[in-house]
């Protein structure tokens, strides 16, 4: 199943692009690179005002009752703008995890706050370099968490996290408020992602799911977030393709626009190919939510979006020549974001592996 965006969805896309084009401030984003623990307040205010925090939440909890397709559309716009905060994506992961665990009390407590932009949520699943750890080091006992989750996206700002932990040998998912948790900031090449190691020292946590259900929900929440991230990567890659195109049309060398040289012209055209393959896979994956082959569709979206954004970052800078490698050009904002997004919600090698397992199994 793949879809064409309907009129309402196209309107969301236009409006998101328009609002962010008007408000994005490159100088502010550049300065955030040099500060740890901060994010772009004005972007986050815009996201709340525009209702993006409420977009994919159920109406019963103050949301707009839309879904992954619409959030993906907004994510394309935030990706194009290298938005200075990761909370739309982390909120989505956290809220989807809560909705899947069907714990009415936590839903009623947190989801309206997420919808209103009064709280920030995240998920803390990965350990070591594994997006979904094979053996879980963070422990859960007597209603409390002990141990460290490394480099949690939005970890410096989030009010709560949905945490994958182990109760003895049994995996569990629990919700922890982060008020009293030790947050060690990562001084990162993409600082506005607000990465932090979260250290739980007997932190009280609400048990949400146990055993295989906990693992399944963790994986599903990660996969759904990954599709949002893929849309963000798509938006970034497309923005870079157009920047490269515009520069190649305008910049002259040897008596003609550099875009008239096939080495440049074809390089940009190859980007178009990567962007359109990624777009097709992203739209397909978002429309597949809730179907058996959602995981396969999500993995394909992630791989093609990662390839598109990384390649676009490399090639767009290359096409800009010396002008592309300056600090002030800001093209490195995209290069940094291409990599940070590729790592969040599962790295490329990890998704390759997931997809191979699924396809090889399916062909058995």
């Amino acid at each position, binding site marked *: *199943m*793949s*879809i*064409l965006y309907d009129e309402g969805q196209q309107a969301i896309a236009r409006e998101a692009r328009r609002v962010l084009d008007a408000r994005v401030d490159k100088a502010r984003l550049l300065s955030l690179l040099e500060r740890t623990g901060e994010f772009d307040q004005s972007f986050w205010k815009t996201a709340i005002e525009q209702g993006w925090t409420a977009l994919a939440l159920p109406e019963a909890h103050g949301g707009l009752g839309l879904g992954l397709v619409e959030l993906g559309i907004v994510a394309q716009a935030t990706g194009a703008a290298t938005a200075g905060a990761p909370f739309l994506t982390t909120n989505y992961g956290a809220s989807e995890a809560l909705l899947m665990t069907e714990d009415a009390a936590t839903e009623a407590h947190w989801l309206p706050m997420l919808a209103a932009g009064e709280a920030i949520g995240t998920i803390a699943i990965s350990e070591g370099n594994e997006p979904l750890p094979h053996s879980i080091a963070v422990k859960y006992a007597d209603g409390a968490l002990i141990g460290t989750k490394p480099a949690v996206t939005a970890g410096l700002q989030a009010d709560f996290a949905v945490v994958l932990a182990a109760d003895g040998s049994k995996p569990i998912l629990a919700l922890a408020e982060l008020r009293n948790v030790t947050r060690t900031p990562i001084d990162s090449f993409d600082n506005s992602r607000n990465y932090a190691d979260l250290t739980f020292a007997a932190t009280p946590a609400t048990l949400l799911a146990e055993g295989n259900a906990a693992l399944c929900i963790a994986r599903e929440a990660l996969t759904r977030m990954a599709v949002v991230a893929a849309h963000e990567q798509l938006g970034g890659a497309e923005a870079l393709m157009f920047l490269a*195109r515009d520069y*190649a*049309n305008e910049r002259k060398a040897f008596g*003609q*626009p550099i*875009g*008239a040289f*096939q080495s440049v*012209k*074809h390089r*940009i*055209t*190859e980007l*178009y*190919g990567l962007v*359109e*393959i*990624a*777009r*097709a*896979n992203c*739209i*397909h994956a978002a429309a597949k939510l809730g179907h058996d082959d959602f995981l*396969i*569709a999500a*993995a*394909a979206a992630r*791989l*093609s979006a990662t*390839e598109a954004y990384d390649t676009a970052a490399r090639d767009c800078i290359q096409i800009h020549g010396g002008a592309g490698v300056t600090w002030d050009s800001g093209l490195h904002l995209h290069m940094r974001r291409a990599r940070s997004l590729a790592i969040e919600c599962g790295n490329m090698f990890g*998704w*390759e*592996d997931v*997809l*191979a397992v699924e*396809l*090889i199994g399916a*062909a058995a």
Partner: protein
Amino acid sequence: MSDLDAYRLKARAWLESMKPTFGKHACHGLPEDEHLAMGRRYQSAKFDAGYAGITWDPAVGGQGLSPLHKMVFEEEEMPFAMPSGYFGVSLGISVPVVMRFAEDRTWARERGIAALRGEEIWCQLFSEPSGGSDLAGLRTKAEPDGNGWKLNGQKLWTTYAQHSDYGVIIARNDPTVAKHKGLTFFWLDMKSPGVTVRPFRLAAGDAHVNEVFFDDVKLTDGQRLSPVGGGFGTAIATLAIERYSASDPAGFGPPLDLFIALAKDCMIGGRPAIEDGRIRSVIARIHSLRAGLESINTRAMLAMAAGMEPGPEGALNKLVSVRSRQKLSELAIDLMANLGLGWDRDGWLKDDWVASWLSAPTMRIAGGADEMLLNTIAERILGLPQDHRPDKGVPFNEIPV
């Protein structure tokens, strides 16, 4: 169930019923004349069943259905390896242009029906030794001769000219104007005196393309299909007729499932190849690429069903899919190692890695070389500049050779 789904199921059932007579096993290893005869019988069966000329006007023997119906039928037909290749250019390009531009409507209608039934085959005489991508640089001459015309020159890469009864041709009537402006479009009888057809073999061993020589071949002015000097426009219109046809994310080569099955049977370094990270990476990457193309195609069909123009990204299909087929075929042969050295001369592109690999370079050039496709996307979709063209606006006979 939508009408289109019902159409698909009915087409599939009909194709299944034809499989014992015309399918892969029935055709495998036949000498070319018998294979062609089989093709004609299959085309005639399609006509009788209402699967020939799906989008054509019923007045000329067609079905009057949408391009979507045609694409659905082509998608369903592809896995059967039916002997339909002889009629692709004929029915997809040459005959439609004749039916559109020929003045004698009765004659054109007769040709259309004969072609739909597989009784007559038409070729398209465009490319020449001097160039394929640079169509307007062609050199075959059409000179006024009494009330008609006289053709001299040579065409190249003409698909199935050796089996063709007729052809459409573009030739230069005036070398003193810019190259696009001095061209005129005609049809001709391939049995005319002075026409010599010489098949030649391609790298994969097959000989479906030809050199065609014209030595004082006489044409009447009634065979002219364009204004004098207006042939280039007609040629471009010709290329647009086949705009909607089924594409294959596997580049008309083997599907990824066959590669996975192969990897399950092979070993690398004493371990099953299917457990090797390099192989798994290839599987994941090729799947992502082809899934993207599939989604592009699905969205194009949705757009058409909703009465909208499909997006321009469909232009990526051939470029991306055939490159992926070439690479995957190389890797499959590598994986088979010693066991991959055999060559079945009748191997089918969609399940034989060697056949797929040997003809992949042809696919990357025929019907628009990769570089031309990249230029087209760059210029038409992205708005990048045209290449430097030193022959632009220069009279043809003053372009340095």
